[in-house]
Structure formats: structure tokens, C-alpha cells
């Protein structure tokens, strides 16, 4: 096997154990676009993983000079429920935590049902009950529609 090498980062966040194939959606959650990249972002897609339940593969995203806020971490949990967030300061691990999907979420995704009242300019945030954490499946608290393709509906 060829060893994949990505240089260690000095300061920033490593998002590890992302469900294979979801790295680009993680970048979407991070709001990365051509106008706001000021530091290096390394993206590894489909690298071998020894962790159980991953099918042997994972994605990894390393973002330099940025620490993620809670809302961003909560969104990542919706598409990569086994991800870990590692905060690096001065080349050392300052913090390491698993993302955590709570039993209900609000304001992070919109309902996939175009006829749902929450998609009609009403003054409410979409709210969901988490009916499965892995793979993440949500049920809209308004229209009852269940949704598993969450990345298409991230706000």
C-alpha cells in the first residue's frame, strides 16, 4: 500500500473519520469558496480506516488556522455521525471530541418536502426529530416527512 502523507498542521482543525464520500459536503458546511480561502485546506477522500463500522474507508479534512463553532460541528454530525474533531494548537492536539447528534435539531437543515409549511416563508425554523443517528435520518416536526439525504438540504 502507498502511504498517504499530508503535512501536520500548526494551528487549525482536523476533521477525521468522516463517512467516506462526504468530504465535499463537509467543505460545503465549512462554507469554503474561492473568495474565503486564506489558509491551506487538505482534503483526503477514501483513505483506509481501521475503525469498525466504516466499511474500511474514511475521508479526512484538515483546515488550517480555523477552529469550528458548535453550529458547524452539529451540521457535520448530520452527514458524518462518526467524525471526530481534533483541534491543533502549535502542532499539538489541544482538544479531541466526537461529533454528537442530539435527539432533535433546529435551524440546521430545511425540510425536503417542498410543500412543508416551513418552506413557505413562515417565521419558524425547521425542526426535526432525529429518528436514526447512523445513518442520520430526520423526521420533520411539522409535516412528518422523513429525510435521509441530508446534505442536499443543509441551510
Amino acid at each position, binding site marked *: 500500500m502507498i502511504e498517504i502523507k499530508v503535512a501536520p498542521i500548526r494551528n487549525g482543525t482536523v476533521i477525521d473519520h468522516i463517512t467516506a464520500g462526504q468530504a465535499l459536503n463537509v467543505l460545503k458546511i465549512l462554507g469554503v469558496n474561492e473568495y474565503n480561502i486564506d489558509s491551506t485546506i487538505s482534503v483526503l477522500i477514501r483513505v483506509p480506516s481501521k475503525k469498525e463500522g466504516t466499511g474500511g474507508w474514511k475521508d479526512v479534512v484538515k483546515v488550517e488556522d480555523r477552529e469550528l463553532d458548535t453550529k458547524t460541528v452539529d451540521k457535520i454530525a448530520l452527514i458524518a455521525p462518526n467524525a471526530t474533531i481534533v483541534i491543533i494548537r502549535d502542532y499539538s492536539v489541544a482538544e479531541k471530541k466526537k461529533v454528537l447528534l442530539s435527539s432533535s435539531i433546529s435551524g440546521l437543515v430545511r*425540510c425536503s*418536502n417542498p*410543500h*412543508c*409549511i*416551513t418552506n*413557505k*416563508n*413562515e*417565521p*419558524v425554523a425547521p425542526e426535526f426529530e432525529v429518528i436514526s443517528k447512523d445513518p442520520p435520518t430526520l423526521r*420533520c*416536526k*411539522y*409535516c*412528518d*416527512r*422523513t429525510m435521509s439525504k441530508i446534505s442536499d438540504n443543509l441551510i
Partner: protein
Amino acid sequence: MSFYDKDIVSIRDFDRKQIEEILRVSERMVPYALGKKRTKVLEGRILGNLFFEPSTRTRLSFESAAHRLGVDVIDVSEMSATSISKGETLADTIRMVDAYCDLIVLRHPHEGAARLAAKFSENPVINAGDGAGSHPTQTLLDLFTIKRAKGKIEGLNIVLVGDLKYGRTVHSLIDALTEFGANLTFVAPETLQMPEDNVKHVKGKGAKPQFTDKLEHVIPHADVLYVTRIQKERFPDPSEYNKVAGMYRINNEMLREAKKDLVVLHPLPRVDEIAPEVDDTLHAKYFEQAFNGIPVRMALLYLILGGEGL
């Protein structure tokens, strides 16, 4: 449980015991619904009937149920006559109407509208149908009709036929029938079968539904046949519609093999799903079913507005 001041948004919010209580009170309302007894038990209360979508049966039966209990009704029956047409949100409309009445009945084209209304209204809200979503009062009157006709719901073989994909009445109904332990069979062409989401939900509650597109195979074992309308606009090709609609048209010939006490129900309006000749048989209970909307809705108003003494 007390229903006083409670919202009725989805049948999934209620368990079997709570539904049974509503059915018991509905039974007590029958003589009043028939006009054989009279009462003004809820005199002085005001019902806000908000129908943002056309409806005949549901709107009239809520009005009739209210009048039978002495409740006054204010209503909006056309979207164009409201400030919604001027761009007002439903949330604002609800807050306004909430100040004018003691209870809101809402029919709305968008799914989840009743849940939103319940959030913004101080007074209780009854969902009278929201888009392709819930229609809990229809479900309650369907259950009431089955209970009255058969004496029980548990263990009955209940066949649902027609447009099971888009027909909102069947989606709420199968949730409740599962709570009561009925055996479910879904008869529809593949394109109009029960949505996977709904099937998964009832299976999670212990139901073991059967699926077929051959109505004649299941009629001999059925205790209840619940027929729904197949809408022409669901088919891009009219000849395909005619073929499918013809397969599920109920007539006396089709019911030849049926049990003598088979009950045929339909949420109405029917187009030609049930031949008029069936109306004269003992199977036909769909007009009774339409009447049952009155005692059931009376029971809800009575329980939610805190009626006493009936």
C-alpha cells in the same frame, strides 16, 4: 387524559386509550347529532373555521357539530378574501383569528400548517386536513364508523384500495388501525401503493401489512373495504387511468364472494369507484360514515372546550 384545551394535529399524537375515549363520547353525541335531543351546552363559545382549501363535508360538518352544541361559528372559506392573499403569513393570520375565537379549525394546502398554527395560537387548534399530510378528524370518524358497524376494530381484516399514495385519509387511518391491532391489506397499482415512509412507520408499530394489486383475491376475507378515489390527474396517459380505475370499481358482481357483513367505506366524494347499485346493499356504510363526522366532531369540541353534563 383530559382533552381540555388540547390541539388535535395528528392522529400519531394519540394512543389507543385516548382514541377510545373520543369514540365513547362520540357515541353519546349521536342523539344530539341526529337532532333527537337538543343542547346548548357550549353556548357563548366561538369557533373559528379557517378553510384555505375547498371542502364541503369537513367544513359543513364542523359547522353543524358546533351549532348542535350551541357554539357560534365565524369563518374564512376563501383564501382570496383574506390578507393571506396580500402576503400575510399563516402565523400572523392565526394570531389574529386566535384573538377572535375560542378554538380554531384549520384546513390548509401545506403540510405541517396545523402544527404551525398550534404553535402560534393560544387557543386549541383542530387540524381539518393539511395538504397531503394529516386529517385526524376523518380518521376518528372512520374508526367510529368501523367500531359502530363491527363492534370492534382489533383483529379485523381491513382492505384499503385505490390511491394509497396521495390519499391523505389512508395515511392517518393506517396509523390508528395499527394502534388498534387490525390486519391491513393495501390494494393498489404499484404506482399508487402506500408510501414507503408510512409503511415503515406502521411496521415499526407491529403491523404486518399485505400488498397486492388484485382486489378480487382479497375481497372474500375482508371485514372492511375502505375505497378511495383514484384521481385522473395522477396519470399522464388517460388510457392508463381508465384501466386502473376499472380494475378497482366496486359493484355487486365484485362483492359476490364477499362476507355477508362486509362493510364498504369511502371518505367521499366518490366519482365512480363504487357503483350506485352498491348503495342499496347492507355493505354500504359510506353515507353513515359521512354522518358520523358530526358526532365525532361534536365530541372533540365538547372535550376540548370543556363541556360538562352530556
